[in-house]
């Protein structure tokens, strides 16, 4: 039996009377894409923050590659190999596209306390940054200012920065948002190959992408996972149809 790379057990988070995360457990197996879906306000973003380390859980544990990281913050979890992309692009806007990926490569490399040699002349870091841009098809935009990118290009740059980290797990929060039909299709193809490098926990609203990619899907409603299973199982699950997919899928 293979061990899960990421194991979330009985996570809880309460904001006053609201149970934002209510006893959530899930696993991410090697080479797997595990999609997390749910209606707006279901608690997906809260759960992602708890897994990434930005939000402390009331109880429960997060284990990562067999190591309990519950007590660690965002920085330590990133160093442990968690590569996260944000729902709302979170980039250094004044920098060029390449500088953002070089920053990622620098974080991966870890030697940030160097004060004298120009970082953009560091062949190794720049090559890593360019390689990540090439993989998402953004190499020709390398010298463009990030603030001048379109929304969809920023989404892709988020993914490219995560690639430079060479993480053990990808945690992607709606990477398809704003990409448009063709862009979404291209990224779907890319994520499909990416799973060979590291498993992906994918929060996504684009159901075509989710059903095309996910080995397993978990459905989060009101802070609880009401079902986990393959695409077919989720499509057939009466609870899910009622709570989430609703009438539109009944056709």
């Amino acid at each position: 039996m293979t061990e899960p790379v990421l194991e979330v057990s009985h996570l809880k988070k309460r904001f006053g009377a609201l149970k934002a995360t209510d006893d959530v457990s899930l696993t991410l197996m090697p080479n797997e894409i595990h999609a997390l879906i749910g209606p707006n306000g279901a608690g997906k973003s809260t759960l992602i923050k708890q897994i990434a380390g930005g939000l402390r859980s009331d109880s429960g544990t997060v284990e990562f590659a067999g190591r309990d990281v519950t007590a660690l913050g965002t920085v330590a979890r990133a160093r442990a190999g968690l590569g996260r992309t944000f729902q709302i692009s979170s980039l250094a806007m004044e920098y060029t596209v390449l500088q953002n990926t070089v920053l990622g490569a620098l974080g991966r490399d870890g030697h940030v306390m160097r004060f004298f040699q120009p970082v953009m002349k560091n062949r190794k870091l720049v090559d890593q940054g360019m390689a990540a841009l090439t993989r998402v098809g953004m190499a020709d935009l390398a010298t463009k200012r990030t603030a001048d990118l379109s929304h969809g290009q920023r989404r892709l740059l988020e993914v490219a920065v995560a690639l430079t980290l060479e993480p053990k797990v990808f945690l992607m929060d709606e990477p398809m948002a704003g990409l448009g039909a063709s862009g979404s299709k291209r990224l779907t193809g890319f994520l499909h190959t990416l799973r060979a490098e590291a498993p992906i926990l994918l929060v996504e609203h684009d159901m075509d992408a989710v059903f095309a990619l996910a080995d397993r899907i978990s459905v989060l409603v009101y802070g609880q996972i009401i079902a986990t299973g393959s695409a077919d199982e989720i499509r057939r699950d009466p609870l899910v149809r009622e709570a989430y997919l609703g009438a539109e899928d009944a056709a």
Partner: protein
Amino acid sequence: MAREPLINIILFALFPVTAGVAMVLDEPFIITLMTKAAILALAGVGLNIALGLGGLVSFGHAAFFGIGGYAMGVLASHAQSYTPIMETPILIEGTKSMLVIWGVAVVAAALAALLIGVLSLRTTGVYFIMITLAFGQMLYYFAISWPAYGGEDGLSIYIRNDFPGLNTLDPIQFFAIAFTVLAAVLFIAGRLAKAPFGLALSAARQNPERVETVGVAPFRLRLVAFIISGAVTGLAGALFADLNRFVSPTMFSWQTSGEIMIFVILGGVGRLFGPVAGAALFILLEHVLGGLSDFWHVYLGLLLLLVVLFARGGLIGTLAGKETAHD
């Protein structure tokens, strides 16, 4: 956009050219003004590392400026009175050596920045401004109430400190020392901004979440930036005290913090040569407008208002255009 380096070179060359012409025309006062501008620019270059690169709006850099000044004052006053600073457990004597004084000033300011930074960098925004201001004021009142070193009256040092091979009392030679220090620190600060540390620090200013996500803690970056920043401003303080041959609690006052910040804002926040332009402009205005009216600060205020409202890049930004992302 190669305009900025050209403007920087012209601006920088104005210092020695003006001082040289003043020497030929036998105008030592002008040389002293240029020396003052170079030293104040140095203080601004220090602040700019925290403020421009790190986004840390420190309103307490007078603390480091004053510590540098008092490092000079304490060491030189003991040397001129031939009394040791302490005898037990080890004998520490004063000194008139500028190089030793600079070393002490830099280390003392860096240590103070470490302490102040550890406490204040846990806050952000207006709280950070207030805490740094509070530390500056603490040191100000401490200096006022410390009779051993002049208290409110400050300390006079009769003869400028020694630099190997130079006559430091000759205005042009002291100018050369201050200008060389400024040039060296500008070189280091320029490298720093482009180094891995600079990339990460500036990214932490733009988006701390991004930096955390790549596994780097913004706090550490900011603390190191604050220490380097304080050390540079401390060095400027030692030079400033030497220029005046006088130290007083005024160096610690919040007005001093404000003035250092004005150099940075006038010249251009985050621009390497911004504080140089800002300090030069400040000295020019102080000299020209101050000659016309006792209320020259009103005009300075108006100018500052215009810069903040219409020319965010300051003098350098207005002349050189939008900043290019560093290559």
